[in-house]
């Protein structure tokens, strides 16, 4: 089964305006750079995005924001993006902030066919507003819903044409769960290989979750906070 597409532009060519799109990454680490740029080139709008962050001003999802493509966003931390903060305060973008672990689990649950689960994160806070609670063994929990999407745009280090994926270091983050939670998952990889090259024991995302795969044309892999120690 060959899931290979030639370019990022081809891979996103059928994503319509108004879609719900999950985008992998933590900060700028492990983001689908090539697919984001292709989406910006496609010039669609009204997207409902789900991603832990929103890039930074001028890079990653920050470019989608600047292009006015995003109508609503679900994430856990957007502090690196001044434009987003302004848009939210002006009421131009509907932002839903979700505790990071709850966000990760909602996506995992969505992909695993679990419509809801109970979490202790956010009990007694603004996050609890409007949510059902349940007490288990003397402790309160919030009912949280599984999340799914029309498309997931993810980034892996290595992948084969059958869609099996391996991630590298902390660039894994939200990518594996998002791969499971969308109707169409598009994976961009730094190194594309033939089936059989990746040790089956090392596959993190099995190919069943990936509908399209491409080799990213170029990677900037920008570092947000470069810190070094002296020798």
């Amino acid at each position, binding site marked *: 089964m060959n899931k290979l597409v030639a370019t990022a532009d081809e891979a996103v060519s059928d994503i319509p305006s108004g879609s719900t799109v999950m985008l992998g990454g933590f900060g700028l680490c492990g983001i689908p750079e090539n697919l984001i740029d292709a989406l910006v080139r496609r010039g669609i709008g009204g997207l409902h995005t789900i991603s832990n962050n929103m890039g930074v001003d001028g890079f990653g999802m920050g470019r989608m924001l600047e292009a006015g493509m995003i109508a609503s966003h679900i994430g856990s931390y957007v502090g690196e993006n001044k434009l987003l903060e302004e848009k939210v305060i002006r009421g131009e973008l509907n932002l839903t902030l979700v505790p990071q672990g709850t966000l990760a689990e909602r996506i995992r649950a969505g992909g695993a066919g679990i419509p809801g689960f109970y979490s202790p994160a956010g009990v007694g806070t603004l996050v609890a507003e409007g949510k059902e609670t349940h007490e288990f063994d003397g402790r309160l929990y919030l009912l949280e819903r599984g999340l799914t999407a029309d498309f997931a745009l993810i980034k892996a280090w290595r992948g084969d044409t059958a869609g099996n994926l391996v991630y590298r270091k902390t660039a894994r983050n939200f990518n594996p769960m998002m791969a499971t939670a969308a109707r169409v998952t598009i994976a961009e990889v730094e190194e594309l290989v033939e089936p059989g090259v990746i040790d089956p024991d090392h596959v993190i995302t099995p190919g069943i979750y990936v509908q399209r795969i491409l080799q990213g044309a170029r990677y900037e*892999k920008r570092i947000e*906070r470069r810190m070094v120690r002296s020798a």
Partner: protein
Amino acid sequence: MTTLPKAAGQKADKQWETEKRERIVKRIARELRDGYYVNLGIGMPTMIASHVPPGMEVVLQSENGMLGVGPYPLEGEEDPDLINAGKETVSELAGTSFFSSADSFAMIRGGHINLSILGAMEVDEEGNLANWMIPGKMVKGMGGAMDLVASARRVIVAMEHTTREGQPKILKKCSLPITGLKVVDTIATEMAWIRVSPEGLVLEEIAPDVTVEEVQRATQAHLIVSGALTQMRS
């Protein structure tokens, strides 16, 4: 009263800022135990990594999917795929492991983290904590803080005792939207070491350069002075 020239005053301020942080960080480091799995929040808590007592093994967890966080890399060895939760470049250690965000928060939510240390804008006498939002002003998000405070076995807050304007941050009741309800175990500041108890805030240790009265004046909540009050050691 003599007034310092402005530049000298600023220098003294900066030195005091550093000293305050060092004091807080070193005091908290004394709570570490061999074999602990610890999550350090962004900012001042990150500094605790350099104060792990010699011979003690403490494994640092970073909620973006890493156990065994090493020091900042040497120049030229920075890797964009290897960052901590503050998005800073870090390094691996022998025994480091990587995992997804779902696995990372499963280990947090599952109560496997011994100690979570994080900063706060406000803490109150019930152990409520506020550190993620200022309505109408700051829209940043809670990141992993709500998950961490809800489920870590012990939560220590590391913060300066008052705001830059000298207003108390330890309150009767948090005025900002809270991050967690009754979650704080201990508050460490440059002035004091304060334990949250069902009866209220217990002043257990005070810094050598302040009196109990001064600590209370800088604190809006009532402090119960421990019968075993000692000097805060760092």
